[in-house]
């Protein structure tokens, strides 16, 4: 029975992490946007506005949950929960360190890819349930965008899987550092199995994965409805898209889902391309930096740093680039990213057969 207790504790811990991450994420987003736009951001609440998020949370918790008269009550109430659960379930298979993974699933990557698609359903539910033109337009845009961008993301992921030869996220992580059981060659030339560090990450193991990573990153922005792909919630035309009608705690859940999604896609990107929980420091002769900085705690630290770095890039992009138009969005997906992703997949096959 204690085994099941551990599962509950791990699940609660992940939820707590997601909540805390969202709090810091919101604050960071406001400060980053302020910095980029040459403003100050929140300053009044607490020192440097640090209590702003707490104040916002209190405000949201107090708000009345308003259900529009014409809304489909069941769908409307269930939608934010489903959106959040879809994202939250994705965290199950993600490794945090050597031996630290909530559920070591042999098809973990495939599972994550599948479970994320529930979010689309939740968004459609929210759009339809709100019974509001803006909501439904936003939901449909979001669904169209997510379905389209799943294809280049999927092929970029397949390019990695062909190199790694496994769908187990923990094994993919293991292959990118000093703990690897098989030989690692930097750029397919230089044996770095015992050097580890930065050199053995997937993007450097097979350089075409760098392109795959960029494709994946762009697609992941679209899948989490972040700018420059935020036409589902384009405030200038759709008020707030699919979450127009949500208030209080329901809106908080939608927000939580968005930030968890940002972290989730970043973490998947890190696991697949950027060495997962492996240290970026290589062994240099007698200075065994990689061996010293590999371990469960170090693992958590590294994967957290890398994922937060990617989240930072997401924020940076959001406040730098203008929003794409629908036709530009679809052109980018189908005419640029998808063929490139196919090419990456092809190179992966060749790389695996003749170079590795």
């Amino acid at each position, binding site marked *: 029975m204690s085994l099941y207790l551990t599962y509950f504790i791990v699940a609660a811990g992940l939820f707590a992490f997601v909540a805390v991450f969202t709090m810091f994420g919101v604050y960071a987003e406001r400060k980053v946007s302020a910095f980029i736009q040459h403003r100050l951001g929140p300053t009044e609440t607490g020192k440097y506005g640090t209590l702003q998020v707490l104040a916002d949370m209190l405000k949201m918790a107090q708000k009345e949950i308003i259900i529009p008269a014409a809304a489909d009550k069941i769908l409307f109430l269930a939608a934010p929960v489903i959106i959040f659960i879809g994202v939250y379930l994705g965290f199950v298979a993600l490794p945090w360190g050597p031996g630290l993974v909530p559920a070591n699933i042999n098809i973990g990557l495939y599972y994550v890819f*599948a479970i994320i698609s529930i979010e689309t359903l939740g968004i*459609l539910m929210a759009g339809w349930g709100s019974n509001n033109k803006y909501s439904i337009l936003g939901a449909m845009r979001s*669904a169209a965008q997510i379905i389209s961008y799943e294809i280049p993301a999927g092929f970029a992921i397949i390019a990695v899987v062909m190199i790694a030869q496994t769908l187990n996220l923990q094994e993919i992580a293991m292959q990118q550092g000093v703990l690897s059981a098989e030989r690692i060659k930097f750029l397919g030339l230089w044996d770095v199995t015992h050097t580890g560090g930065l050199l053995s990450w997937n993007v450097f193991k097979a350089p075409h994965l760098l392109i795959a990573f960029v494709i994946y990153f762009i697609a992941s922005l679209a899948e989490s409805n972040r700018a420059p792909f935020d036409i589902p919630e384009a405030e200038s035309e759709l008020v707030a898209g699919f979450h127009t009608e949500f208030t209080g705690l329901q809106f908080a859940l939608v927000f939580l889902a968005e930030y968890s999604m940002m972290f989730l896609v970043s973490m998947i990107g890190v696991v697949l391309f950027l060495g997962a929980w492996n240290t970026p420091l290589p062994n240099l002769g007698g200075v065994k930096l990689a061996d010293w900085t590999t371990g469960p705690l170090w693992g958590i630290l590294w994967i957290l740093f890398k994922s937060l770095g990617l989240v930072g890039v997401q924020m940076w992009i959001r406040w730098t680039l203008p929003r794409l138009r629908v036709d530009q969005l679809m052109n980018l997906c189908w005419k640029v990213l998808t063929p490139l992703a196919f090419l990456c997949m092809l190179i992966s096959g060749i790389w695996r057969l003749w170079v590795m």
Partner: protein
Amino acid sequence: MVQVFFYIMAFITLASALVVAAGKNLVRSLFMFFVTLFGLAGLYVLALADFVAVTQIVVYVGGILVLILFAFMLSGKEALNRVSAQSEGFMSLKNAPALLLTGLFLVIMFNVVFKAQADKLPWVQVAASNKNIMPVNGTGINHIGVNLMTRYLLPFEVISILLMLALVGAAHLSRKPKEDEV
């Protein structure tokens, strides 16, 4: 434990399927269908077919269900109301062919279940006695991959050609006719 889960999953699947079939509100039925599919995926997991379960979610929940919903939302409320207004009594003459078909199908299913005796199929027993079985150790997906690319390559390719044809057809249908053809 497994049996308890099986009954829970089976109950969820059947109950939600009933709601899907009997529900008056079409969109709610569709969302309920999502629960049915999840229940089915759970049943697959209990049958140690984890790959099939996840594929079920990817293909049906992530793909087909979302597309159906999409079609629904594009068709607008008036069309939907007309469809939901059509339903009448359970035993009307219009439903007779459907009832007949489902009844016959039920008979076939019962026959299959009772006649086949899935517990003691001869080929299963032969395979078990010859140790020609696959252990449950998470390598199922590797076997699926190898078999798809060797033994079942032809059906696999035929299906891919079929899908390709469907894609080409869809692209052709949705293309705007050129000016000189109009």
